[in-house]
C-alpha cells in the first residue's frame, strides 16, 4: 500500500504546483501547458482509484479535445496586443478577503478531523473491476435523465457555435 500513497502524493503535488504555475505564468502558452499538466495529474488520481475508464475519458475529452481548442485559440488570437493590456484590475482587497474566508473554512474542516465526515463505506470508494461496462450500465439505467439533459445542452452549444460562425463567414 506504500506505493499508492507515494503515487497519490506525487499526483496531488503535481496538480497543485501546476495549478499555481498556471495562474502566475506571464506567457499564455506556458499557463495553458501547466493547465494540461493539472488535468493529467487529476487523471492520474482517477487511475489511482482504479477508474481506468474515467482516466482515459479524462485524457481524451479534456486534454485531447478541449485543451487542443484552447491552445488553438491562443495561437490564432494575436498575443502581443493582449500581453500589453493590464493583467490585474486592482481588486486586490476583495480577492484577499474572499481567500481568507475560504482558507478558514478549509482549516476548520481539517481541524474537525475526518471522523465527523460521513464518508461512504470503504469498499464503495473503489470502482468495480470492469468499470467501463459499469459506467455504461449506470449511465443508461439509473442516470438516463441527466444523460439526456447533458446531450441536449451540448446540442444547444453546437447550434450556437454554428450560428455565430455562419454570420462571420
Amino acid at each position, binding site marked *: 500500500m506504500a506505493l499508492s500513497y507515494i503515487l497519490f502524493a506525487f499526483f496531488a503535488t503535481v496538480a497543485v504546483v501546476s495549478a499555481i504555475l498556471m495562474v502566475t505564468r506571464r506567457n499564455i502558452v506556458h499557463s495553458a501547458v501547466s493547465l494540461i499538466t493539472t488535468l493529467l495529474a487529476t487523471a492520474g488520481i482517477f487511475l489511482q482509484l482504479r477508474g481506468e475508464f474515467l482516466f482515459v475519458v479524462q*485524457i481524451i475529452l479534456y486534454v485531447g479535445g478541449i485543451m487542443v481548442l484552447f491552445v488553438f485559440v491562443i495561437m490564432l488570437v494575436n498575443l502581443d496586443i493582449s500581453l500589453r493590456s493590464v493583467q490585474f484590475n486592482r481588486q486586490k482587497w476583495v480577492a484577499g478577503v474572499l481567500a481568507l474566508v475560504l482558507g478558514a473554512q478549509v482549516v476548520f474542516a481539517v481541524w474537525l478531523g475526518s471522523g465527523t465526515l460521513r464518508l461512504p463505506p470503504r469498499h464503495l470508494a473503489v470502482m468495480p473491476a470492469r468499470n467501463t461496462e459499469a459506467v455504461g450500465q449506470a449511465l443508461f439505467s439509473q442516470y438516463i435523465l441527466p444523460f439526456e439533459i447533458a446531450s441536449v445542452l451540448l446540442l444547444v452549444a453546437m447550434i450556437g457555435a454554428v450560428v455565430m460562425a455562419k454570420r462571420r463567414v
Partner: protein
Amino acid sequence: MSHLTMPHLIPTSIQPYVLPVLWGVVIVAVLPLLAGYIVLLERKVMADMQARLGPMRVGPHGLLQPIADAVKLLLKEDIIPHDADRLMFWVAPLISVTMALLAYAAMPFGPAFQIADLNVGLLFILAISSLGIYGIVLGGWASNSHYSLLGALRSAAQLVSYETAAGLGLVSALLLAGSLSMREIVQAQYDQGEWFVFSVPIGFFIYLVGSIAETNRAPFDLPEAESELVAGYMTEYSGFRWSLYFLAEYANMIIVAGIATTLFLGGWLRPFPRFNDRLPGTSVEILDALPSLVFLGVAAYCFWLAPKQPVKIQKLVMGLVGGLCVALAAALAGSLFAPDAVRLGVHGGFWFMAKVMAYLYAFLWIRFTFPRYRFDQLMRLGWRFLIPLALVNLIAVAVALVVSQEWGWHPRVTTILATLATLSVAVWLASSDEKHETAIRTADGE
C-alpha cells in the same frame, strides 16, 4: 501476465513490475530501428513504383541506409531559431515521441508479447495518440515563424477532425467485439470465426482513411506540403530534434496499423485459425508451416543474389541477411514443436507483424498514387462525408446486431445487409457532396 511462458527466473512477487519494464525497454530499443527500416521500405517501394532503384549505395541494396540516416541526423547542427520560445521548442518534439512510444503499452504484438492488457486498452491508445497533437501544435508555435505556425494550426485542425472519424470507424468494430481490451477483441474475432474487416468493411474503410489523415500522410499531408508551407511545423527543426518528430510520425504509423490489425484483421490470429488438419504424420498444422516457408524463400533469394554483388563486403552482408532469414525460419519451424504457449507466441508475433506490414504497404501505395488534397477539400471530406458515413455505419451495425439477436437471423446476413444500407447512404452522400461542390465552384467562379 500469468500466461507468460518466460521461465520463472524472476520471483513472482516483483514480476508484474519487472516484466513490463523489460518489454518496454525492448520496444523502445527496437522501435527506432523498425521506424528506420520502414523509411527504407518506403523509399524502396516509392522507387520501384517510379521506375527507379532507390537507395543502393549504403550497404547491399541500401540495407544500411537507415543507420547512415540516423548517424547523419545525430551529427547535423541543431539550430534553434533566434527568438523562439526555448522551453517549448525543446519540449515539443519530446511530447510527440513520448506519446507515440507510450501508446505501445497496450499494443498486443502476440498472445505472449503484450506489456499491459488494460481493460480499456483501445481507448488508452487513442487517448495517448491524441496527446501527440500537442507536440505538433507547440512545436509550430515555438519556432516563431510564419510558415510553421500556419502548418501547426492546419495539422491540429486536421488531426482533431479525423480523430472523430477514425474513432467512430473503430466503434463499429467494437460493437461486435463487445470489449475494449485488445486481447478480448482478438479473442472475439476467434470465437466468431470471422475477422471484423469482413463483417464491418465500411468501418475498416473509414478507419483506413481516418488513420492516413491522422498520421499526416499523403494525400492528407498538407501540413508539411512542400510546395506551400515549405515543411509545416517542422520547418525550423533540424538535426536530432527533427528526427524525433520523424520517429514520432513513423511510430504513430505503426500504432495505427497495429490498431487496425487488432480490430479488423484479427490481431495475431492465423488466417484460418480453425482450419487445423495436420501435415500427414506430424502434429504440425499446414498453415503453421507457412511462415517458415516464406522466410526460407527469402533466404534462398538472398543467397542467390549474394554472389552477384559487385563489392566483396556486399557479398558478405547479403549472405548475412540470408543467414538471418534462415535463422528466423528455423525459429518459426522449431517453435512448432515447442509447448503450445511458445508456438502461439512466436507465430502470433509473425502474423501480427505481417498484417501490420501489409497495412503499411497500403499506406505507401496510396501515398505514391494520389496527389494532395487542398485544405478545404480535406476538411470537407472529413466533416461532410466520413463522419456522417461513420455515424450511419454505426447505427446500421447496431441495428444489425439487435436484429440478429432478437429475430435469430444469422449475424453474417444482418451485417451484410447493414453494409449494403451504409453503402447506399455513402453513394447518396458522395453525389450530394458533388452537386454541392460544383454549386460552390460556379458561385464563386463568376
